[in-house]
């Protein structure tokens, strides 16, 4: 997928948060109070030394700024774009307590990391060959962060991914007004540039190769196989054409061309951040009426309030406390969603059944968990379909570690990066103790 079609559907999107010019970056960087033991650092799952990288922008040491970011977060370029900074670093900026706009940390991080990409600055070299080898199952952010860190310590790394490319949801699932797929692929190349990371695509662990075989090949394993397909609703009409999974849809229009010319009324089921992404994306892709149907209230929605605010600006409407109970169709195609309204206790309200007309429905109610994949691995436990991990991302089986969505159930890219990096540190300690 390194050669993505230039006219793919996501190309119509522009940046929701445009890049800073150098003047804008310098002015913003100079506002930073350079806090001691800064709350923004604590709020960052990867613990980037934010005041330091911002000060380096202010002093025109942009190269050093980028290095400071990548030292903690090798995917700092994409995190700058996709992190929900409003609830992480920016949300904890002390300026919030002063009634002053908080520092735009994400935009500053993008400024420094983009500069590193444009200039081709390379900061890291592989360590001296340790003679050890680590197999990584999955090729998303957790895997990349883990692989890069392991290479710094000289361990050989092989990434196995069932798709024909790596990058994970960072490439196929990020809202294009935050980051287009090709930018994520640039980042994959940047990570791989450290050298010595073997990438085996089209290999499904558990089907094409067993975990036992991987354990024979490698001295340690890192499981980062993410989540499975979109969850479906087991209701009448679920098989109708036009009832689709949201994550699947996002991947299609980000990597190819998705024809929505026949769609004028779309309903997105769900109230999480994927639902909020899809409703905005549908509006920009030209769908006239986009409705988000969610079982709960606006206050209970798991999607971020700032994302919902932006969706409303795009003209999205919501049907709160609305539960789909079936799909209406004609000629095998969906024509509407049969719903009931729920009361405050999430109980259906008598006589509230109604049909919301729709010529396309996207289900954004979560993705299935793949924990069953590791059922045969003694000592590796799962909980609610997620791989259980302890300190250093270790599973209960010596030499087997896990991180990213398959372990945390589906969090942010920055959480996956932190877990991949931390797993690598633990794996390095484990392998060093063996030697």
């Amino acid at each position, binding site marked *: 997928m390194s050669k993505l079609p230039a006219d793919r559907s996501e190309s119509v999107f522009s940046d929701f948060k445009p890049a800073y010019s150098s003047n804008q970056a*310098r002015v913003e960087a100079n506002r930073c*109070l350079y*806090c*001691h*033991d*800064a*709350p923004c650092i*604590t709020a960052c799952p990867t613990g980037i030394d934010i005041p330091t990288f911002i000060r380096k922008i202010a002093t025109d040491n942009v190269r050093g700024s980028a290095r400071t970011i990548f030292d903690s977060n090798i995917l700092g370029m994409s995190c700058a774009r996709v992190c929900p900074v409003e609830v992480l670093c920016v949300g904890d900026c002390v300026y919030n*307590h*002063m009634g002053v706009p908080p520092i735009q940390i994400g935009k500053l991080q993008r400024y420094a990391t983009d500069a590193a990409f444009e200039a081709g600055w390379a900061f890291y070299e592989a360590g001296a060959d340790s003679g050890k080898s680590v197999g990584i199952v999955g090729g998303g952010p957790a895997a990349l962060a883990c692989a890069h860190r392991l290479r710094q310590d000289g361990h050989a790394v092989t990434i196995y991914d069932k798709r024909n490319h790596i990058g994970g949801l960072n490439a196929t699932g990020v809202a294009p007004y935050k980051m287009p797929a090709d930018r994520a692929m640039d980042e994959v190349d940047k990570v791989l540039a450290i050298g010595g990371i073997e990438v085996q695509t089209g290999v499904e662990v558990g089907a094409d190769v067993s975990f036992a075989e991987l354990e024979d090949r490698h001295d340690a394993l890192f499981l980062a196989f993410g989540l499975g397909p979109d969850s479906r609703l087991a209701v009448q009409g679920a098989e109708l054409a036009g009832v689709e999974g949201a994550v699947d849809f996002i991947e299609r229009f980000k990597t190819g061309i998705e024809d929505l010319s026949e769609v004028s009324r779309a309903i997105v089921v769900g109230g999480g951040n994927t639902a909020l992404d899809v409703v905005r994306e549908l509006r920009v892709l030209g769908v006239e009426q986009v409705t988000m149907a969610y079982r709960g209230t606006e206050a209970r929605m798991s999607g971020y309030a700032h994302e919902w605010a932006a969706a409303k600006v795009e003209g999205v409407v919501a049907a709160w406390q609305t539960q789909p109970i079936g799909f209406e169709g004609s000629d095998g195609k969906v024509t509407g969603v049969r719903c009931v309204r729920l009361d405050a206790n999430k109980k259906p309200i008598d006589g509230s059944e109604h049909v919301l007309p729709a010529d396309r429905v996207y289900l954004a109610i979560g993705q299935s968990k793949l924990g069953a994949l590791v059922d045969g691995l003694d000592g590796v436990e799962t909980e609610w379909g997620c791989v259980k991990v302890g300190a250093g991302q270790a599973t209960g089986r010596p030499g087997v570690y896990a991180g990213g969505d398959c372990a945390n159930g589906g969090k942010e890219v920055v959480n996956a990066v932190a877990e991949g990096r931390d797993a690598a540190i633990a794996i390095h300690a484990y392998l060093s103790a063996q030697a």
Partner: protein
Amino acid sequence: MPDLTSNTAGIISPNPFWLASAPPANSGEQVMRAFDAGWGGAVWKTLGQPIQNVSSRFGAIRWKGAAGVGFNNIELITDRPLDVNFREIAEVKKRYPKHAVIVSLMVESKEEWREMIMRSEDAGADGLELNFGCPHGMCERGMGSAVGQEPTVNERITSWVKEYANVPVLVKLTPNVGDIVPHGLAAQAGGADGVSLINTIKSIIGVDIDNFTPQPVVGGRSTNGGYCGAAVRPIALHMCAALARDPRFNVPISGIGGITNWRDAVEFLLLGSSSVQVCTEVMLKGYRIVEDMNEGLNQYMKDKGFDTLDQMVGKAIPAYTEWGELDLNFEIVAKIDSQSCIGCQACLVACHDGAHQCIHPSPTAAELTPESRVPIVDESECVGCNLCQIVCPVEGCITMEQVDNGFGKASWNDHLVRGAQLRPKKGAH
């Protein structure tokens, strides 16, 4: 309504705000626009034998995204024909009779001084300012700061001028000396009616680190220039006050150096300036800044009950003393207002790394709320240095409050002379 009329050695202007002798006062057209904007006077760009300037001429310090907190120039005196300058001065005086036009002069021989004074007075000048301060270019030709740095030469040339001049004469002093006082006294001894200070400070504003050339760059080379702008204000304030408090010095002062707004101007007035001169801020922002300066000064005078400028000129001088006279038993400590603290801990790191290690993190700092991160001041160790208050981004959050320690006033001199008891030292661990 306070009266802002300024009288500096007999030079009367409707307010104390004058353009300093510099590019903003280079031509009649500019000076008239400045008067329209509200400036009370202008010291004309120095007249002498017209020179040839270089390009480039200016450099600036950039600080936190803003250019010009410090500024430097290598421009010389007027490059325009003297006839044109004098004709324009006459025109300005004709159209603006109530505004002060002071002509800055810099020539070499006594005969040249005589001729320039006569032509200035013929054009209607309200006063003369002798440029004994320019620290670049002209001093290499024996003028400017070359004169100002030699008290005997300063006094001699001032006395030549006073032989011919009928209007008040101000001598503009250079700060490029160890002690300003003998130079002010020399001007006074030569008969000067007043002094203006400071001229610019000899400086290199920066270096082009890619091409290994000081700035501003002129064809691959550079030279030292004159430093000015807000950054020089503390130096200028000190020199103004040093003269104003000297009992031997008793002529008026026109204050110059880093004045950017009404508040800066008030500081100069309180330290003994009868008028103030502004250049850099006008170069950066234009003549229109004077509207705020007039309004701000007017309101300040109202608030403080001053009816005339005379009532405030030098008002802060009695409180300026030697270190040896300061009360060593006066004690203040820092208090942090937990309501307005935002938890940035800037005070904490400043105290730990840059002061006396008496501000400590709250034990609950890891909770990340502003309330949980209010640092703790160990008042038994706090030396009352002000550093925490200086670095605090929240106005009014840190206050320095007086402690009654039971010790009476005792300066170092009191201690030496009569053995006055000093309180125990703090923070000397």
